[in-house]
C-alpha cells in the first residue's frame, strides 16, 4: 500500500517537474532557440476533437507519424465539437479539430483560437428506414426532406449534444423554417454511433456524418435517403473540418509551438494524402482540403470577416 502511495507522490512530483520543465522550454523557445524538433521532444500535445474524427479511427491511423517525427505524444480527447471548444476555452487543450464553422468563428472572435486552417471535409447524409414513411428518398433538398419528416411526424432521432452534427441539424431545421418538437422528435444526448443504433431500433430518421454511417453500415438496416454533396447532394450538407491552435496570448500554458507544428504537419501534402487514403470498409471517409494552388483566405478568419469592417 505504501508503495502505491509513494508512486502517487512520485507521479505528482514528476508532474510538477514536467510542468516546470515545460515552462523553461517555452522560455528558451521565445529567446530564439531554433534547434528544431529536439526542443519539443518528450512533450505532450493535447488535442480536443469530435467523436467522428476519433471514432472512425482516422486519428490513431495518422498520429503515429507525427509522434515519431517530433518525439512527442498526442493526447486525443474525443468530446464532440461543443465540448472540445469549451475545453480549449478553459485552456485545457493546445489544439482543436472540430466541424461547426459557426462555433469555430465564435471561438476565433472571442480570441481563444488562432491560425485556423481548413483541414478536410466529408458530408452529412439523411438516414432513414427503407420503407421511408415520409417519402423523402432522393429529394434534392435537405430542408424539404426535413419538412416532409416533420409533416409526416415520422420518428426522428437528434443527437441533442451540442456536437457539430447536432449544430448542423439545428441549422437545417432553422433553414427549413420548422421548429421540431413532439413525440416524434427525440433528443438522445449520445454520440453518432449510438444515435444510429437508436434510430435503427426505432426505424427513425436521423442526420449522420457519412464517415460514421459507413463505419457502422454493416450493423444497421438504415439507408441513405438524402445524399450529401460528395454524392451530388445539396451543398448545405457539406461537413468541413477545421483545425486551430489555442491562443497563447490568452492561455500562456498552451503548448503553442507544438500546436503549430501539428497544424503544419496535418495540413502538409503528405498527411493530407494519408487522410485521403484512409478507408473504412473499403470506402474513403475524409477528403483533404488544406492543400490548394489557390488558398481560400476565409479559412484563416471568421467567415465573412474582412479588414475593412470594424467588427474584428
Amino acid at each position, binding site marked *: 500500500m505504501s508503495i502505491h*502511495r509513494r508512486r502517487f507522490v512520485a507521479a505528482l512530483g514528476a508532474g510538477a517537474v514536467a510542468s516546470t520543465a515545460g515552462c523553461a522550454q517555452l522560455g528558451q523557445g521565445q529567446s530564439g532557440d531554433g534547434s528544431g524538433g529536439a526542443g519539443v521532444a518528450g512533450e505532450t500535445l493535447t488535442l480536443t476533437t469530435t467523436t467522428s474524427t476519433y471514432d472512425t479511427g482516422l486519428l490513431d491511423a495518422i498520429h503515429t507519424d507525427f509522434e515519431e517525427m517530433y518525439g512527442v505524444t498526442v493526447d486525443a*480527447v474525443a468530446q464532440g465539437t461543443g465540448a472540445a471548444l469549451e475545453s480549449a476555452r478553459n485552456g485545457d487543450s493546445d489544439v482543436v479539430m472540430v466541424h461547426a464553422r459557426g462555433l469555430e468563428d465564435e471561438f476565433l472572435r472571442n480570441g481563444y483560437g488562432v491560425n485556423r486552417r481548413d483541414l478536410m471535409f466529408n458530408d452529412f447524409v439523411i438516414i432513414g428506414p427503407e420503407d421511408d414513411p415520409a417519402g423523402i428518398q432522393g429529394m434534392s433538398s435537405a430542408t424539404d426532406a426535413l419538412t416532409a419528416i416533420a409533416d409526416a411526424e415520422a420518428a426522428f432521432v437528434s443527437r441533442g449534444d451540442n456536437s457539430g452534427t447536432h449544430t448542423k441539424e439545428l441549422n437545417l431545421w432553422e433553414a427549413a423554417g420548422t421548429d421540431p418538437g413532439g413525440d416524434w422528435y427525440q433528443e438522445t444526448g449520445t454520440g453518432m454511433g449510438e444515435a444510429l443504433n437508436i434510430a435503427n431500433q426505432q426505424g427513425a430518421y436521423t442526420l449522420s456524418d457519412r464517415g460514421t454511417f459507413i463505419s457502422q453500415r454493416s450493423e444497421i438496416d438504415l439507408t441513405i435517403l438524402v445524399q450529401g454533396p460528395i454524392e451530388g447532394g445539396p451543398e448545405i450538407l457539406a461537413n468541413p473540418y477545421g483545425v486551430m491552435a489555442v491562443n497563447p496570448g490568452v492561455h500562456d500554458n498552451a503548448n503553442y509551438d507544438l500546436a503549430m507544428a501539428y497544424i503544419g504537419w496535418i495540413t502538409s501534402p503528405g498527411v493530407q494524402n494519408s487522410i485521403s487514403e484512409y478507408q473504412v470498409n473499403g470506402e474513403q471517409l475524409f477528403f483533404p482540403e488544406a492543400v490548394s494552388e489557390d488558398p481560400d483566405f476565409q479559412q484563416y478568419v471568421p467567415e465573412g470577416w474582412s479588414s475593412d469592417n470594424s467588427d474584428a
Partner: protein
Amino acid sequence: MPVEPVVQSVPALFEPIAQLSPAAFDLPFREGYVRSTIFVSLYVSVIAVTLSTLVSIPIAILMGFIEFPGKRFVKSVINTGMGFPSVVVGLLVLFAVSNQGPLGSLNLIFTREAMIMSQFVLATPPITAISLAAITGVDDGVRDAARVLGGTRIAVALVVLKEARYGIATAVLAGFGRAISEVGSVLIVGGNITSAAGISKTRTLTTAIQLEARQGQYETAMVLGAVLVALVLTVNAVVIRLGDSGVGR
C-alpha cells in the same frame, strides 16, 4: 470460469461471444490495449481506494470512540456522500484541476492523478460510513471485557478494530467497487485517452465500454464488461482470502 490471470482469460471470454457473432471476434483489440486499460483501471482505483482508506479509517475510529456535538450531522453528511453522483464529482474535480481552476497550475487535467482525485472523493464516504457501522456494531460486551481486563483506550480500540475487521474489509471493497465501476467522473477529468498505438493513458475499462457503446459496438463492449466483472470478482476473492488467512494468525 478461472479467475486467476485476468489477461489470459480474455480469449476464453471471447469464445461464447465469437459463436454468437463471428464478426465481433475478427475485430478484437490492438496489442496491449486491453492490458493497458486494465492496468489504468487498477492503478487509478487501487491508489484512490488506498488513499481513501488511510483517511476514512481514522475518521471512522474517531467517530466510533469519541462523542462530540454535531456527530449526527457529520454522520448524515458522510451518508449523503455515499450517494453523491459521480458526474457531479467529476465536474467539481474538473473545475478544480482545469487550467482556470485553483489547481490549474499543476497541469492535472486529463491525467490519472485527476482521476485518482475524483475517485478518492467518491470512495471515501462509503468506506467511512461502512467502517463506522462495523466499529459501532461491535458488541458492547467486547469493549467492556477489554476495559475490565485493564486495557488502555488504545488497547480497547485495537480489540474493537480486530472484531470489526470483516466489516472494514467490506467497506474497502465497497469503496473499490464504486471506484472501479465508475464512469462519469473519470471520463470528464481523464478524457479517455489512449496513444495512437492503442496503449491506454487515461482510458479505464468503464470508459472503454462507454466508447464502444457510443460507436454501437455492443459486442466488444460486452467483452470489456465481462473483463471488468472478472476483475472485480478477482479483487474481491483476493481480499476475502487475505481476510481469512488473517484469522489463522
